[in-house]
């Protein structure tokens, strides 16, 4: 468990974050989705929200507060899912159905 408090962990976490962004960008390019700054901003907010939720659940279990972990997970998880659906729509702004069809073919 000590590893998760170490600087090395956060270094790895940073690398993973970068790879994730790269992957998302590649995915968007393949679908001809334009990515202006505000789409990335929404993405960042959502990632923070999701990260918070996961960390909240972990921390609450670590504290021995299982009820808080479950209820908090459900509440914040709900927000994350709804915001995720919203993010999906935001990312697809500007993509016409034709574009979608061609990129998916």
């Amino acid at each position, binding site marked *: 468990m000590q590893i998760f408090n170490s600087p090395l962990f956060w270094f790895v976490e940073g690398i993973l974050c970068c790879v994730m962004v790269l992957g998302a960008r590649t995915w968007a390019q393949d679908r001809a989705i334009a990515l202006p700054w505000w789409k990335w901003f929404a993405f960042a907010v959502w990632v923070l929200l999701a990260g918070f939720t996961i960390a909240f659940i972990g921390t609450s279990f670590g504290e021995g507060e299982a*009820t808080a972990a*479950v*209820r908090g997970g*459900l*509440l914040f*998880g*709900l927000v994350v*899912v*709804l915001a995720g*659906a*919203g993010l999906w*729509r935001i990312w697809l702004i500007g993509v016409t159905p034709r574009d979608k069809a061609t990129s998916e073919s």
Partner: protein
Amino acid sequence: MAALALALRYGRTRAAPDLTIPIRDIFPEAVSTSPDNGIYHVYGADGRLLGWARTGSASGYGGPMLLVTGVDTAGEIAGARVVEQRETPVFWRLVRARDLLESISGRRFDAVDYDNVDAVTGATISTTAVIASVRASVAQVAGAAFDVEMPLPSLPFEFGLLEITVLVLLTLGVVAHRARGTARRRLRWACQITGLVVIGFWKDSPITLAKLTALMSGFFPNPRTSLALYLLIAGFVATSLLYRRNVYCLYACPFGAAQRCVGVIGGKGFKLPRWSVLLMEGTRNLIVFIALFMALLTLQPALASYEPFAALFSLRGTTLHWLLLFLVLVASLALRSPWCHFFCPMRSFERVLVTLRRILRRPRPVASHD
């Protein structure tokens, strides 16, 4: 229906407390009592009338408490006893209640300054409730036996933003129901958003099964403080009977509005096939029936409250409520109003009312309708 009535009946008989012991405690010479319109006439060995006793309930610290108060023929308060309470014998509370009751016994009913009885010891939730209950009982006896009208402190009539909103939403709902097309759609959105903000997040006072159960089992909240609830229910019943669809669900219900907002995020959801909707409605009716049955049987309206409204609007709820909230709102991304179809008691009640309407109206050839 019959099963529910039976459950209620059983619940009430079981809950009826035995009053002979506390009444004998208050009137040591009592031999028999005869109830008359809620007031017990207490008789001694020679058949002499000793006084009157009446029960009154109060919400204490840990739940409802039942008290019985006795007034003798001279108009003196003979005493008052706590008959039923769900509070554990926590010393100070019992002491407080005992002291208070002793401090008023032996005095004429109209010589007690009810507002300031507990001024010395300091008012608490329990003592205030105890005094209010005694006062209500004494007022009943005073009116029936002494023909004295004892004014009870009237609660201020609550008429604020919530009540105004409810009235406006119900009216607009009726207007919108008669409108068509874009006007109707816009009006509905405006009403629902207002309902979401005011009836939901700000006041957290939608109609709930618990509130309905309380009404069904005969516990009527004071209309002065619960006007909004009565208005909503009246609007619900009236429009269900008139229009076959009620304006509460469509225009005022904050949870319905929340589902619709989530639906907007989800985009165009898909419509469920007819058979699955029928299945869902059947399941829902069963759930509502079981919840109602349990609540009426035990006379504990809280048992029936499975709606996750408070979890959303006030962040209060059990794990089950949170889970339900999560599932329903996530489902709202893809389905239309899953709560109404799957779980909501109001939709079941609406159907019952619509059936009632069909029975009431004289039969005529069924025209095809929407």
